[in-house]
């Protein structure tokens, strides 16, 4: 028997299919402030925001993988991203990202692009980002209230006839992450629609407000002057209450139409 056919098959098999990376697409990420609506907290205060800014970095988009539905909402960050050891795939990995430092300014920057994300094709479930302290490198002026802090909100809280204007700045621990905000979309090779990043003062599922636990009248009275103006700053009790909610995934979402 001739060995030639066997050698040809051998050569063919050993050469015909190289390794292959999954397809990647480039999608623009833009801010979408249209979902910032009035939010009523558990003390009956209805908050209307006029400024909402957060300093953050490293947007990540995660797939559910093949985790069972019982754990479907499991944040991608927590499953290790195959870091531990090759071959021990568990799903839920980060497969899309936009690297860089950003200030999410949902009012002044509504509709503006943050950059172009690098995204593997797949079925996406979640969004993560990392909080950070802002700096002059973000283009902030020396008198900008956000400078040196993580988040800055300005708004008015109303309850009956009472209105309290407020300014709030928050510090979130360096490298703390917001994990698992919904980003439910299928990205395939033909997708080009931008990813819209939203801030939601009210949790759309349970109706909880970002400002739950805050009594704005009490805040107004803290300075012994009920002038209808209040501030929330690091060290305040209200700061720590809101900061906790600020890190929850329920106040963010991303979509790609």
């Amino acid at each position: 028997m001739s060995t030639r056919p066997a050698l040809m098959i051998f050569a063919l098999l050993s050469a015909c299919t190289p390794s292959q990376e999954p397809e990647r697409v480039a999608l623009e990420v833009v801010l979408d402030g249209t979902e910032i609506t009035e939010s009523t907290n558990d003390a009956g205060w209805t908050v209307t925001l006029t400024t909402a800014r957060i300093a953050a970095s490293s947007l990540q988009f995660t797939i559910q993988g093949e985790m069972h539905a019982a754990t479907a909402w499991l944040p991608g960050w927590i499953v290790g991203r195959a870091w531990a050891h090759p071959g021990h795939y568990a799903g839920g990995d980060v497969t899309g990202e936009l690297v860089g430092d950003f200030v999410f300014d949902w009012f002044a920057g509504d509709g503006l692009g943050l950059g172009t994300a690098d995204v593997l094709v797949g079925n996406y479930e979640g969004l993560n980002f990392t909080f950070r302290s802002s700096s002059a490198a973000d283009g902030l002026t020396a008198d900008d209230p956000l400078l040196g802090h993580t988040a800055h909100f300005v708004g008015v809280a109303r309850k009956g006839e009472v209105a309290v204007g407020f300014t709030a700045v928050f510090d979130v621990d360096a490298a703390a992450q917001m994990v698992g905000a919904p980003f439910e979309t299928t990205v395939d090779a033909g997708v080009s629609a931008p990813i819209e990043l939203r801030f939601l003062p009210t949790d759309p599922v349970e109706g909880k407000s970002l400002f739950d636990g805050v009594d704005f009248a009490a805040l107004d009275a803290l300075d012994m002057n009920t002038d209808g103006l209040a501030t929330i700053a690091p060290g305040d009790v209200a700061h720590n209450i809101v900061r906790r909610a600020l890190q929850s995934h329920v106040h963010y979402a991303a979509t790609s139409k």
Partner: protein
Amino acid sequence: MASQRVIEARELSVAPRRRSADDLLRMVPGVLLSQHGAEGKGQQLFLRGFDAAHGSDVEVLVAGIPINELSNIHGQGYLDLNFMIPEVVRQISVSKGPFQIQQGNFANAGSIRFELGVEPNARGTRVGYELGSTIRHRGVVLHAPRSLGRDSFLALEAMKDQGFAPGRQAQRVSSLNQIRLVRSPTFGTLDLLGAGYYATFGSPGALAASDVSAGRVPFDGVYQGDGGGSSLRALSSLRHQVALGGGRLEQRVYGQFRHFDMLENFTGDLQDPVHGDRRAQMHRFFSGGYQVEYTRPLAERLSLAVGGAWQGDSISQSDTRVDAEHGVVQRNWDLGVGQHQAHARAGLRWNATKWLTLEGGARADLFAYDVIDHLHADRQKRVLGRASPRLLAAFRVGERWSLFTAYGRGLRAPEARSILAGTTTPSDVVLDRYKGGTAKIFPSDAVEVGARFTGKRMVTVGLAAFGTWIERELVFDHVSAVNLELNSTRRLGVEIDVAVRPREWLELRQDLTLVHARFVESGAAVPGAPPLLSATTLTLVHPSGLRAGARLQVVGARPLPHGARAATYALLDLSVGYRRGPLELGVQVDNATNTRWKEGEYHYASHWNANDPRSTLPRLHFIAGPPLAVRLATTLYFM
């Protein structure tokens, strides 16, 4: 079963790529091995659509002793077979799928049993030396007196190998001895087995394919040169076999000490930009076990097999992130574990007619854990159990054909760390992060239908179709310390083997395995499992003293996570030897075509270059397979 296979000493003696007993697993049809350390570290196994990692779904026994390490810190069911000396492996028995009641924990894909001994035609005393092109030296001394039976031998092996590239260095010394102490018509036989083994090995880690293509690191290079580990084993067993009450009783008591440690880094400094992501793992245990099996006929056509076993392990294990000087950065795990594994089984074999044989039975497995978390001052206990039915039917159709069908339930017990899951989630866990599911035994349900044709002289043909379904596989993620439940999977496949033996001394064999492994709902491929595995083997053992072996293995493109795909490759390994009188000369040639191939391929995120963006996106990584290597061996036989 059609898929059962027994590989005899004759075939093993000429197996190519026979560097260690670990490599003998390559002889098992349908098994794919991937070494992502150096020789001495357990290999990654794939069988029947399972990525069994380091042994989580393939049960392996050596001389009847279970070798899979339940709760090993490096991987569940970790297998290290390097303590075996290839010259004293007399048989490998392969039972794919979980269809027999003897098959226990980890046998979801199948069981592989190594039997030790030296066959009569190979007995005597011999001294061998092997010199390899990778600056490899291996010496072996085997003493198997002809006056003793095949179960008695003394063997000693020492090996040092620089490896084909950085990070592949390995050395070991091993002693494996077995002797029949008692051979009495009244009291039966008593065999003592003793083994001692120590090895050190390198660990090259995986390279990002993009770094290799950009010329930043050679194809077979390393990012860091300090990866590696050591492995130590002391093992002893006493086996008693006796005829009793019209049946046969076999019992075994064994004890073992193991130490394993290793340092590795697969991700550079992605997790820790300051100190890097090196991880040091240590796993050490003492274990003791007892097994008993009794078989006897109940009637002319009916026989009974009952048995049971217990094994207790006392484990100390740790996992630590360390810096470049190997100083401690973060302690991830520091556990003390006491665990027990026990089972009882019973089965009947009924030769209903001369053409129909039925086997049925069940086993009940019990696992008990007592886990002390030294880092979090926590202690958890858990007892888990599960029953597994097994059924087989064999039909003989004429003189040449046999048909088989079987159903079996396999199982994999959770590792000790998963018992703590939900109580040791990371300290920065806040708000609504998932704390994981409950550790449990997960079962698999498997069926097989097959046929075997046995020709008069020359040809045997086997065909088996199999399916394995897992409703909810539980994966313990050791980074986040949570138990993750995966969606349902099914693995469907076909195995074909054809053996042609035109002469008594010559056999040609073709094994082909095709697997379609998918998640049921999404239809996505189960990552890791090779869809095609082909092995073409030639075995020549001529009475003149000439021996030769050749194997061409073809591995289909394995699906990787996130839609990536590994490369297809084909490897040709050769061996040839000639014995004249007391002298035998041999040559082994690995990768005879010098194919540039990737032994392991993975898809995950890493960061190795300070100037690169710190991306968490997964990308292809690989570990280079060995290039052409030649080993010359000479063996001197003393009668």
